[in-house]
C-alpha cells in the first residue's frame, strides 16, 4: 500500500509560557491552523494547514509564535530533493497539475544583483538632490519623428501621439479585481492618483466605484475580454493588451466559478458561478498583423486619445517580438520577466518558462535601437523589481519605466506565502471573503504604497545625484553607468555593459 503522507513544510512553534490562550491566532487564521483545547486549556496547531503567511506571528500579543522550516527530511539527495519527491507523491496521488502562486522562487541568477551603479568622483561633480532639482518626471508613448511648424514659423506643440505622464517611472502592474480584493484595488487606485502614476486593472474589469480614478488607471484587455466595454475603455488613461505574463508565458488563466460572485461577476460581465477562463492566446491574434488590427480597433474605439500598451512575457525571441510590436502601432511595450508574480500558475510553467527580465530588457532596447525604432515605443519592465536600485539599473539598461506588482502587495501586507490560489489570504489581499477583505484598510494601504514609492523616489534621486545626473531621462539607456560583476563575456555582451574594473 502506498501512503501519500507528506510532512508539512513548516512547523508552528508556540512558546507555551508566553501563550495566554487569547485565541487571536485562531480567529486570524483562515487556514484553521490554530484551535483551542478547552480540556487542556491550551492552544494547539495543525502544521499541515499552515502556509507560513505570518499573520498569527504578527498579531500574537505576547509574541509566543514562530514558524520554522520543518527539518523532517527524506534521505538527503542532491538530485531527488525533498521538493522533487513530494511533488511526485502529490501528483501520483491526485493526477493533477501542480499549482503555485507569486513569482518563480527557484535559485536562478538574479542579474540585478550582478550589476553595479556608477558615481562621480573628481572629474565631474555629484549633485545633491537636497540642494538642486532632481527630476524623475517622464513620459511614456510614441514620439514624433519630425517637428512641424505653423505658417508663422512657430513650433506646433500639440503632441500627435497620446502620452502618459509619470511623476516617477514606477507603475503598479496588472492585478485583476477577483485575483485581489476590492480593498487592495482601492489602495492601488488611490495611491496611483496621489503619486501621479498609474495602476492597472488586470483582466477583471473596472469596478464601478473606481471609475473616478480613471485618469490614473490603465485598463487591460486580455484574451478573455472580461469586463471590456466602451465606457471601460474610455475610463482609463491607457489601454493594455495583455498577450502574456511572466509567471505563465503561453498559457491562459482560470478564475474558478466559486470566486465569480456579486461585484466580481458584475465587473467581469459574466454570470455568477461561471468559471472565468482566459484562453492561452487571443483568438483574434494568431499573428503580428492581427495584433495591429486589435491595436487599431482599440485606438478607433477611443478616438486615438489613449496610448496602447502591449504586454508580453519575456521569452527567448523577445527582441524580435518587441520589434514587431513596435511596428504594430502600439505606443508602449510592457515586458514581464520570468520572476513576475501571479495569482495562480502551473508550477512547472512558472519555474521553467521564460527568461530573466534584465536580459530581455537589454536585448529589446538594443534591438529597437539597431532598427531605429526605439522612439516608436516606450519600454516598461516588470517581474521583478524589488527595490529602487533595481529601478535605476532597469532605466540605465534602457527601460522607460517599471511595473511593480509583488513589491506593491508586500507594501499592502503580503508576506509572500505563495498561496494566493487558495483564496484564503489572511492579509485581505488575494481573497474575496468579506471577513478577510476588511482586514486591509484602503486608507492604510494607500498610505503604505505612497510611502514605498516616495521612499524609492528619494533613493533613486540620491543615486542619480551620485552619478551627476539630474534627470531620469538622461539615465535612460545610459549603460556606461553600469558595470557587471561576476558575469561571463556573453552575459556582459547581452546586457551591453562592461565588467567592473573595465
Amino acid at each position, binding site marked *: 500500500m502506498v501512503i501519500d503522507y507528506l510532512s508539512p513544510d513548516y512547523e508552528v512553534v508556540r512558546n507555551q509560557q508566553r501563550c495566554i490562550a487569547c485565541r487571536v491566532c485562531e480567529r486570524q487564521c483562515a487556514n484553521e491552523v490554530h484551535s483551542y483545547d478547552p480540556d487542556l486549556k491550551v492552544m494547539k496547531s495543525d502544521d499541515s494547514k499552515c502556509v507560513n503567511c505570518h499573520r498569527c506571528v504578527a498579531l500574537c500579543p505576547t509574541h509566543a509564535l514562530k514558524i520554522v522550516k520543518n527539518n523532517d527530511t527524506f534521505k538527503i539527495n542532491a538530485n531527488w530533493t525533498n521538493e522533487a519527491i513530494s511533488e511526485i507523491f502529490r501528483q501520483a496521488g491526485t493526477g493533477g497539475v501542480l499549482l503555485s502562486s507569486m513569482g518563480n522562487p527557484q535559485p536562478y541568477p538574479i542579474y540585478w544583483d550582478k550589476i553595479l551603479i556608477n558615481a562621480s568622483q573628481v572629474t*565631474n561633480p555629484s*549633485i545633491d538632490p537636497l540642494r538642486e532639482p532632481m*527630476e524623475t518626471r517622464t513620459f511614456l508613448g510614441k514620439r514624433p519623428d519630425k517637428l512641424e511648424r505653423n505658417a508663422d514659423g512657430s513650433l506646433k506643440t500639440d503632441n500627435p501621439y497620446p502620452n502618459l505622464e509619470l511623476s516617477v517611472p514606477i507603475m503598479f502592474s496588472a492585478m485583476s479585481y477577483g485575483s485581489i480584493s476590492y480593498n487592495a484595488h482601492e489602495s492601488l487606485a488611490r495611491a496611483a492618483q496621489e503619486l501621479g502614476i498609474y495602476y492597472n486593472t488586470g483582466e477583471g474589469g473596472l469596478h464601478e466605484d473606481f471609475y473616478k480614478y480613471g485618469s490614473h488607471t490603465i485598463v487591460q484587455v486580455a484574451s478573455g475580454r472580461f469586463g471590456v466595454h466602451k465606457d471601460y475603455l474610455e475610463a482609463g488613461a491607457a489601454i493594455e493588451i495583455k498577450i502574456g505574463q511572466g509567471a505563465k508565458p503561453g498559457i491562459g488563466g482560470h478564475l474558478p466559478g466559486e470566486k465569480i460572485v456579486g461585484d466580481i461577476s458584475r465587473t467581469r460581465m459574466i454570470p455568477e458561478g461561471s468559471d472565468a477562463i482566459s484562453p492561452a492566446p487571443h483568438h483574434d491574434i494568431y499573428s503580428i498583423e492581427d495584433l495591429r488590427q486589435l491595436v487599431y480597433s482599440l485606438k478607433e474605439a477611443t478616438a486615438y486619445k489613449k496610448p496602447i500598451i502591449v504586454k508580453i512575457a519575456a521569452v527567448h525571441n523577445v527582441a524580435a517580438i518587441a520589434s514587431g510590436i513596435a511596428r504594430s502601432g502600439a505606443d508602449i511595450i510592457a515586458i514581464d520577466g520570468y520572476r513576475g508574480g501571479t495569482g495562480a500558475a502551473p508550477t512547472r510553467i512558472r519555474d521553467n518558462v521564460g527568461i530573466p527580465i534584465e536580459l530581455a530588457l537589454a536585448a529589446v532596447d538594443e534591438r529597437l*535601437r539597431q532598427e531605429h525604432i526605439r522612439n516608436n515605443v516606450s519600454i516598461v519592465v516588470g517581474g521583478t523589481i524589488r527595490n529602487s536600485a533595481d529601478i535605476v539599473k532597469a532605466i540605465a539598461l534602457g527601460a522607460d519605466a517599471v511595473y511593480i506588482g509583488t513589491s506593491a502587495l508586500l507594501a499592502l501586507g503580503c508576506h509572500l506565502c505563495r498561496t494566493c490560489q487558495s483564496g484564503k489570504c489572511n492579509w485581505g489581499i488575494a481573497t474575496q471573503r468579506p471577513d478577510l477583505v476588511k482586514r486591509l484598510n484602503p486608507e492604510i494601504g494607500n498610505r503604505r504604497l505612497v510611502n514605498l514609492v516616495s521612499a524609492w523616489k528619494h533613493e533613486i534621486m540620491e543615486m542619480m545625484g551620485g552619478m551627476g545626473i539630474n534627470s531620469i531621462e*538622461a539615465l535612460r539607456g545610459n549603460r*556606461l553607468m553600469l558595470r557587471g560583476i561576476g558575469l561571463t563575456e556573453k552575459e556582459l555582451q547581452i546586457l551591453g555593459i562592461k565588467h567592473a574594473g573595465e
Partner: protein
Amino acid sequence: MQNEGEFRIPSGCAISGVFSRSGKKFNGESIIKSISTMHDRSNGLGGGFAAYGIYPRNKDLYAFHVFYDSVRAKEECEEVIKANFDVNIAEKIPTRRIPEITDEPMIWRYFGLPFEKLLKDARLDEKEFVARFVTKVNTEIKGAYVFSSGKNMGVFKAVGFPEDVGRYYCLENYEGYCWTAHGRYPTNTPGWWGGAHPFSLLDYSIVHNGEISSYDANRRFIEMFGYKCVLLTDTEVITYIIDFLNRKQRLSLEEVAQVIAAPFWSEIDRMPPEQQKKLTYLRNVFSSLLVTGPFSILLGFTGGLMALNDRLKLRSMVAGEKGDMFYVASEECAIRAVEPNIERFWAPQGGEPIVVTLNEGVNV
C-alpha cells in the same frame, strides 16, 4: 594602451572664443594669447582652434582637413575623396617644426565640391552628402581622419599645449572673424591627434569643457539617426546632437539649447501656458538628448557663435563685450588678456544660450 575611441576618457579643459560682429578679420595671435593664460587648465595632451572666414578665396568649396597615419591611408582616402569630389586644391597644411610638438601625422587639406551627378544619384542635399562622406572615411579608412569639413572655416588641432599648437600651425597667417580655442586636460595619455578638440562636422565646430553624465544615453539615441560615435568623447556626441537638432530637425539654436540644457520642470511649470506647452513638448520629444552633468560649450558655425552652459552651471564660463567684439572664455583672465578695456562682463546663466551673429549685411 588603447587609442582614443576604444574607451571613454573624461577630461577637464579650457575654452575661449572671440567673435567680431562686424566681420572684421584678425589673425590667430589674440586667441593664442587668450587660451595661453589658462595654461594650467590643460595638461599638454591636446589643444586646438577653429577659425571662420579664413579661406575667402575658396569660400564656396568644402575644406577638408585630414590626418594620415600612413601613406597607405592617404592613398586610400585620396582615392575616395577624388571619386566623390571635384578637388581644386590638395596640399599639405603649413606647419612650423617646434620641439614641443612631436609625433605628428601627415596633415593635408583639400578644397572641393561634390560631383553634381553623385549628389543627384544619391538624392541627398549637399550637406548630408558631405556629412555621410566624412562619417564613412572616419569609420572605414584606418589611419585617416577628417577633422574639419566646413566651407570657409577650418580646425587646427594637435597633441600639445594650445599655445604650442597655435604656433605649430602658423595661425598668425590666417585671418578670421571668429576664433575658438581649446586646451585639454584628459585623464590619460591618448596621444592621438584626432582626439584633440575642436570637434567639427560640416561648418559646426565645438569646443567643450566638461564631462557629461548623460553621455551613453545621448550616444545610444543619436546613433539611431545615422551618426556613429567613434571617439567616445562628449564633444563628438554634442556636435552630432546639434547637427541633428539644428540642421536636420531645423530647430533654432535657442530651441536647441532648450533641448540639451532644458529648463527644469519646476521652472517650466511656472511659465505662461504657451511657453510651458512648447518646452514640455520639446523636452518630451527629445528627452534622450537632454545633456546632464557639467559642460560649457562654444559652438562655431558660419556667421555665428553660440555659448552654452549646462543647466546647473557646473562649469565656469564668462562672457564680455567691447564694441562689435564678443568674448567668451572659461576664465575672465583669458578675456582681459586680449581686451583689457572690456565694456561689459557677465556670467551667462546655466542653460541660457548666448548667440552672437554677424551684423546684417556683413559679407565674409
